């Protein structure tokens, strides 16, 4: 094979979709659902701007910052775990546990925010802003909880030696789900907490 042929073969090898194909279709479907919810939020805001501005006053952007950093740090650790496993190195389980710990930070912050809003009487039925706030962030929160279960299962299986070089596809799929949760949050956060 010629040098250019080798280079072309290398490029073909490089074009690789991580994880299972089914997971990518699932991710596209989830992004479509969250996309509709996010757009519903912003268009409701366009129709009731003063009400949304007032509702957003009850939210703390610093909490939103903490939530975002927690999720991003968790995503970073999970991505690092995949790299370690693919290389056949140790540390994948520890990184997955760190990802889980960082995700716990998100859960604690979010539950404190929910408790604060509930104590102020700003529940699901308070007004349009809070109806959409609870639906949108609550639906995302459920995805975070499911993602944490997946991370826990991955850590357990990783510790048992179920993954390694050439057999990391199911681990990649689980971690991809977690990155999708991150991806949705980075769009959801400015829409709910910042843009008014």
């Amino acid at each position: 094979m010629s040098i250019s042929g080798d280079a072309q073969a290398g490029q073909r090898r490089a074009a690789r979709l991580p994880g299972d194909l089914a997971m990518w279709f699932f991710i596209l479907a989830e992004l479509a659902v969250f996309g509709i919810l996010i757009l519903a939020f912003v268009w409701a805001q366009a129709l009731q701007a003063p009400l949304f501005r007032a509702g957003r006053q009850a939210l703390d952007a610093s909490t939103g910052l903490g939530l975002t950093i927690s999720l991003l740090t968790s995503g970073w650790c999970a991505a690092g775990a995949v790299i370690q496993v693919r290389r056949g190195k140790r540390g994948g389980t520890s990184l997955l546990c760190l990802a889980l710990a960082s995700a716990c930070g998100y859960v604690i912050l979010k539950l404190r925010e929910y408790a604060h809003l509930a104590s102020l009487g700003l529940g699901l039925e308070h007004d349009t802003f809070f109806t959409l706030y609870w639906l949108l962030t609550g639906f995302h929160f459920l995805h975070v909880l499911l993602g944490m279960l997946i991370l826990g299962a991955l850590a357990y299986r990783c510790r048992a030696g179920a993954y390694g070089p050439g057999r990391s596809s199911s681990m990649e799929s689980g971690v991809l789900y977690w990155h999708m949760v991150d991806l949705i949050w980075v769009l959801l956060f400015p829409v709910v907490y910042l843009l008014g």
Partner: protein
Amino acid sequence: MSESVRLLCYWLGLAALTVATVNLARVETGSGIAVVVVALAVAKAWLIIDGFMELRHAPPGWRLALLAWPLAMAAGVLLAYMF
């Protein structure tokens, strides 16, 4: 650059953009600030897609489909914001 260092760079970029977004939004909001905040959100989404999800090495169709989602969201958000 090793994969671990590359991941660290992605995380640092994401953290820096997040802090910048929050600080910008604390300034009196206007349509100009809204455009910048949404643009930063799109940049963060692209970092996650190309960096953490590793779509920079994926077949172009899948990569473009994922990269298009934050752009479509940004267009919808800004359209509603300007309404």
